[in-house]
């Protein structure tokens, strides 16, 4: 139990150390440039303390419960798949359990990502409810699921990372021209927020486990890149979701009109 409390203390300290530069910058600009107290400073202070405390608790819990399991599972699953596979030739089909796990864990960790929750809440507020916070998070998580799964496939097959990323960028660029203007900045943002506290450690463990266990892959060279996949595919899924939602809406409106006209 004592160990648990020292853990909390340590995590709280390291969280404080991580945010210290930001706090200094904020105070310098508030005091030195604005020369004014922010409105409702008490509310902001208690809220910030809650954020810090909450994040420290969250990290403690992750370290205690989720990361060890996630990392062990990633290792065991890749070992199991590799053991079942032929030794001399790598066949990508033998690793289907890994792709399934990659998609499932990518989806699940993204739904729990606090940074994404923050952006989704803001998007709902700013759009006056037109963008649903839950819908956005599901769309982003689906994108991460596809991305991490495809990224695992890339590690297994040992194909070149740039080709996948360049192709994904090309898709993003084409989709941008078919999307409603108001969704574009949000979609681009959702690529960056997905890979944070919860997703990165688990996904990185998966990548390293795969690269270590698949014959002919090196963890140092092939272990990278999963995070890049997890950052690009949410943009595609959010743009896609918006395009489909718009089409359905327009189609519905046209149908309504046709029904009224005759």
């Amino acid at each position, binding site marked *: 139990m004592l160990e*648990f409390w020292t853990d909390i203390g340590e995590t709280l300290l390291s969280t404080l150390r991580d945010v210290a530069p930001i706090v200094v910058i904020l105070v310098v600009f508030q005091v030195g440039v604005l020369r004014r107290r922010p409105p409702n400073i008490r509310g902001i202070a208690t809220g910030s303390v809650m954020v810090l405390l909450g994040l420290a608790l969250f990290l403690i819990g992750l370290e205690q419960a989720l990361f060890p399991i996630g990392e062990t599972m990633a290792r065991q699953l890749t070992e199991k798949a590799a053991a079942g596979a032929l030794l001399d030739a790598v066949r990508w089909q033998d690793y289907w359990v890994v792709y399934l796990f990659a998609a499932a864990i990518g989806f699940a960790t993204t739904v729990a990502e606090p940074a994404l929750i923050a952006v989704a809440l803001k998007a709902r507020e700013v759009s006056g409810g037109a963008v649903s916070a839950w819908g956005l998070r599901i769309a982003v998580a689906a994108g991460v699921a596809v991305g991490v799964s495809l990224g695992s496939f890339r590690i297994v097959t040992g194909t070149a990372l740039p080709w996948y990323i360049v192709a994904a960028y090309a898709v993003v660029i084409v989709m941008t021209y078919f999307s409603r203007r108001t969704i574009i900045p949000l979609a681009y943002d959702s*690529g960056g927020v997905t890979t944070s506290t919860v997703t990165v450690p688990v996904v990185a463990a998966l990548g390293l486990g795969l690269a270590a266990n698949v014959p002919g892959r090196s963890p140092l060279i092939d272990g990278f890149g999963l995070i890049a996949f997890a950052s690009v595919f949410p943009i595609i899924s959010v743009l896609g979701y918006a395009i489909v939602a718009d089409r359905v809406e327009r189609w519905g409106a046209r149908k309504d009109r046709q029904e009224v006209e005759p």
Partner: protein
Amino acid sequence: MQHTREEQGLPRFALAMAKQTLGALRDLAPIFAVIVFFQIVVLQQPFPDMANVLVGLACVVLGLALFVQGLESGLFPLGEALAQGMARKGSATALLALAFCLGFGATVAEPALIAVAAEGAEVAAEAQFIGDSQAAQDRYALEVRLVVAVAVGIAIVLGVLRILMGWPIHRFIIAGYVLVMAMTLFAPDEIVGVAYDSGGVTTSTITVPLITALGVGLASTIRGRNPMLDGFGLIAFASLTPMIGVLGYGMVV
């Protein structure tokens, strides 16, 4: 509005926390489901160390609930108050200086970035791209971190400038993508993976809400800007420029 909420006192807070806890349970349910499914159905192994896991899960749920509750009353108002204050002050120089400092300061000490940079140094040493000594690796890792931090600083400056001028975001992002693709052709292979990953790890859980609130706050204070169209996008810049920075670093070194 924040004020009235605070004056309502403890019962109101307890109610809000209960609601957030339920929300946190819902947010974390998929992870539990995935882990239980793969542990029991696929790996067919019992759960290791159940007591520890349960305590950890309780911490995760409570921590997430506190975090989300604190966002609405702490980080969001803080970012917005700062944005409004700076916009009213009317000094673009001060605003851009703040933007750079926030981007640089938030990134340089980011734990995920430190980890990726250290791994990247190992790859580079393995490939004889840099010297094999620990000192050479440390210097390389530090330089990658500084490059990324400066790149994020520049990203926030560009992003804020875009909000001020009302430029459409997709031109920047597409130009950035084209630049990344072109640089990939010329950068050494050892650095491409690190460069691509460095874009994703820069945006931390505290910075994202703060920077989002800053952007949305600016866009809603400046006349003629639409918060939905102009307020978002800072994070996107912050994920793109580190790739360009690290690829460029790889080409120079």
